[in-house]
């Protein structure tokens, strides 16, 4: 094999599994180290740089980083990355001097943002410091979008939302609350230089079964959560059925318990392995004694004398192989009584307010045609991001869409090519401090993942807005940060220095290094000291070494970044170097009013 091209930022980026897994590329190991050093404010700012809403995401992020975490491949449970983010947010000091500021002198370009959810807010966050005049239109009386009215307050307190939204709005964004945009055409006529659509996926899917429209006790999940959030609904019956097992279903069942329900069942059509809800949300619901019933397919709503009595379900049986359903059959039928039903089977975007003759193309499913890189629609100057672009995802994706859309808007307003985008930058810096000293905590800590403490069940349901998770205490934080394997402290190999003494091979606690004769990839992996268990993990192959012509191979899968290879190397052929990845944002493309980036860039 040829030498691995480690100058391509993707190589080292992929080694940092969490950062690779995060749509916004949050520098997770960096902020965890800062937390370990008690530098909560700095940790918060590293987060804010990429994900804009650390306090919010530290509570409700979908955490694509955690399933990716290398620690999870070694001892089953990943580092509690998300909860550590909350630690940084909860304990940060005053950051007012470190937030981006809008210049007094504007650049003369006007941008309209539709829907005050995470996508639009993040676009404003990137564009305001560049002198843009941003105007935000929101149908409700408050900002936040689904973060406010689809996520219950017991998971995300309103104060946390307000604070992080204000950081952006206070830069001078013009906000029109209670202002629903009814016509795209009308907005286009107002002469904005660019329009960003961040209206989310506000329409809950219907379940058109017999009896659906014969009762007032059947609700659409996201609409129902919204009316609870705005206090239009404050009670529900004793027996509630939730249809669907996504994260919205989890929010619905737990909200029901806080509105007077005693007996809540979540009805799933398929077995547990097919659930869409995140494991931790399922666990939290089950902790509150929500019953999750599998293999029940809804058949009809049973209405008697105009009142909902319950639902009938078909009992399902599946033949499953390798995680796929090969066959299914109905084995029976069952009636389950209830007072209310909440439908949480998905949601979709909806654009009745966009006229179809404006050059904004829609596909056969009524979704807008949006470019996956530039986020521009088929009409130049109109951009989409968040759930409105490609359907329901989650907040962290919306933030990343927004960063990219902001770059496009910035380029569009300067008549520059949208597809001409800057590559990510990689900077490597040695972390050697002395003969046996590294500027990071390199010893492997076998501790298990710390468990998040919750408000006790007996006092949990008193108030709708009582936050259930208490956050990590000082000791839990101190232990959890040490579980991080510092995957961003890379093992960097200088081929010409190696004398093939095998010291690194012998000391490696996970046998991830081998010096073997070179060959084709299939042959090479056969020769390695430890079997390749995760073929998707990167494999480093050096140049041919000078003494024997063999190659150094490293399987990144199980590397714990302990630095022992570098410590044992007599010629410093191995070194531990921090990979600092810089993903360009709008400010990096130059500001129209002076070319200094306005945003505070992180230090690494």
């Amino acid at each position, binding site marked *: 094999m040829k030498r691995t091209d480690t100058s391509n930022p993707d190589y080292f980026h992929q080694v940092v599994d969490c950062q690779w897994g995060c749509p916004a590329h949050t520098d997770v190991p960096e902020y965890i180290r800062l937390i370990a050093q008690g530098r909560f404010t700095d940790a918060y700012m590293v987060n804010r740089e990429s994900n804009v809403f650390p306090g919010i995401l530290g509570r409700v992020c979908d955490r694509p980083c955690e399933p990716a975490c290398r620690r999870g491949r*070694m001892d089953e449970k990943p580092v509690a990355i998300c909860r550590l983010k909350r630690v940084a947010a909860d304990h940060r000091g005053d950051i007012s001097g470190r937030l981006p500021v809008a210049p007094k002198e504007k650049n003369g370009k006007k941008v309209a943002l539709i829907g005050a959810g995470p996508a639009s807010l993040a676009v404003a966050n990137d564009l305001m410091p560049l002198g843009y005049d941003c105007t935000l239109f929101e149908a409700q009386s408050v900002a936040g979008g689904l973060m406010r009215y689809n996520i219950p307050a017991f998971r995300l307190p309103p104060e946390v939302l307000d604070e992080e939204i204000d950081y952006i709005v206070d830069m001078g964004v013009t906000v029109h609350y209670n202002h629903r945009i009814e016509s795209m055409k009308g907005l286009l006529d107002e002469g904005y230089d660019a329009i960003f659509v961040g209206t989310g996926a506000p329409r809950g899917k219907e379940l058109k079964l017999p009896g659906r429209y014969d009762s007032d006790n059947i609700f659409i999940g996201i609409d129902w959560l919204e009316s609870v959030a705005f206090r239009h609904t404050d009670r529900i019956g004793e027996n509630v059925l939730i249809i669907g097992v996504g994260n919205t279903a989890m929010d619905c069942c737990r909200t029901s318990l806080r509105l007077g329900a005693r007996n809540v069942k979540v009805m799933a059509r398929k077995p547990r392995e097919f659930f869409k809800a995140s494991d931790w949300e399922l666990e939290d619901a089950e902790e509150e004694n929500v019953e999750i019933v599998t293999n029940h397919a809804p058949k009809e709503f049973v209405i008697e004398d105009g009142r909902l009595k319950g639902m009938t379900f078909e009992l399902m049986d599946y033949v499953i192989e390798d995680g796929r359903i090969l066959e299914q059959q109905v084995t029976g039928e069952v009636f389950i009584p209830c007072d209310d039903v909440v439908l949480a089977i998905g949601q979709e975007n909806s654009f009745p307010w966009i006229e179809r003759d404006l050059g904004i193309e829609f596909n056969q499913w009524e979704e807008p045609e949006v470019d996956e890189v530039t986020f521009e629609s088929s009409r130049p100057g109109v951009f989409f991001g968040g759930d409105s672009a490609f359907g329901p995802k989650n907040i962290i994706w919306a933030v990343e869409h927004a960063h990219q859309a902001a770059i496009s808007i910035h380029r569009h307003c300067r008549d520059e090519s949208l597809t001409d985008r800057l590559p990510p930058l990689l900077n490597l810096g040695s972390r050697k401090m002395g003969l*046996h000293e590294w500027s990071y905590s390199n*010893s492997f800590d076998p501790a298990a993942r710390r468990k998040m403490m919750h408000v006790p069940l007996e006092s949990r349901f008193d108030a709708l807005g009582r936050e259930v998770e208490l956050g990590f205490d000082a000791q839990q934080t101190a232990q959890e940060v040490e579980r991080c394997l510092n995957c961003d402290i890379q093992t960097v190999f200088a081929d010409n220095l190696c004398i*093939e*003494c095998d010291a690194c091979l*012998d000391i490696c*606690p996970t046998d991830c290094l081998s010096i073997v004769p070179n060959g084709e990839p299939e042959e090479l992996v056969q020769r390695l000291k430890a079997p390749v*268990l995760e073929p998707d993990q990167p494999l480093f192959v050096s140049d041919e070494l000078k003494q024997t012509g063999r190659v150094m191979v490293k399987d990144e899968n199980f590397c714990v970044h302990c630095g022992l290879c570098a410590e044992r190397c007599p010629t410093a052929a191995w070194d531990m170097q921090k990979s600092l990845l810089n993903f360009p944002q709008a400010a990096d493309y130059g500001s129209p009013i002076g070319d200094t980036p306005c945003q505070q860039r992180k230090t690494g």
Partner: protein
Amino acid sequence: MTYIAKPKIDLPGQKRNELGLTERDYEGAMSTLCAGCGHDSITAALIQALWEMSVAPHQLVKMSGIGCSSKTPAYFVHGAHGFNSVHGRMPSVATGAMAANRDLICVGISGDGDSLSIGFGQFGHVIRRNLNMLYMIENNGVYGLTKGQFSASADPGSTAKKGEANEMQNINTVATAISMGATFVARSFSGDREQLIPLIKAAIAHPGCAILDVFSPCVTFNDHVGSTKSYAYVREHLHRANGADLIMPAEEISVEYREGETLPVEMHDGSMILLKKVDAEYDPTSRPAALGYLEKQRLAGYVVTGLLFVDDSLPEMHAISKTAHAPLKDLAFEDLSPGGEALVELQKGLK
């Protein structure tokens, strides 16, 4: 020297040997030798060989004298017995241990200083005695522990780190051992584990004194241009006479070998060493052939490695001394210490 310990990590899918132990279970304390020392590489080879042979740690005794090499026993199989003895006297202490318990597997680790200078006499006599042990010499050509003076194995003409040349003749460990009547003599290189590990296994299986001379570069004092024991020099001048595979008695011989290319050497316990001949002329069962070959290759400037000589038929120490067949610990107290009357009887017979 390393400050953090090599962490113990239970990875999914770790291999286990017949005793249910992982390779990591055969490790010892963290090495305090210089980073890149050949000795550490040999330690790793020993760990792998002992693990693959499923040697029970309590059956193993590790012996050493003094020197960098003699620190090695601390770094493998922490559950084994061990004795770090006086400089050059490892063979005597090993003889005592093996005399008392003939069932032990004895691994003695020595260096070129420990065996070829202060312990040269002991080295010769343990060979003559044919004590059942692996006698490993970690040979780096310098006194590393006293900062790089030439040892008795330094080649004439090779230079020290600061440039002065060695003018004395060297002791050729393997040739000396063969001429003294050793029954198993091999040489290898710390950087050639593919050859070293099977040789360690064969040496342990050999029922007698197995001398294994391993070139082990001293990265601190003898890895420069001008040294003949550096990684680069040894790699450049290495001449493999053969490679070996040890086939245990119970194993089926699965390696296909062609006449003339592979030489099977049957051991008395039923195991078999398959020698992969690299040099067709070479015959490791003939003492004059071995000595001649070594001398010829030396003149040509090569460092010969491989199993250089083996003779499984000569009796080992217990057979020569006609000692008890069981370890002393297994004998009944009355047999081991028959009392004063028995002594008087014995003495009568000697009058």
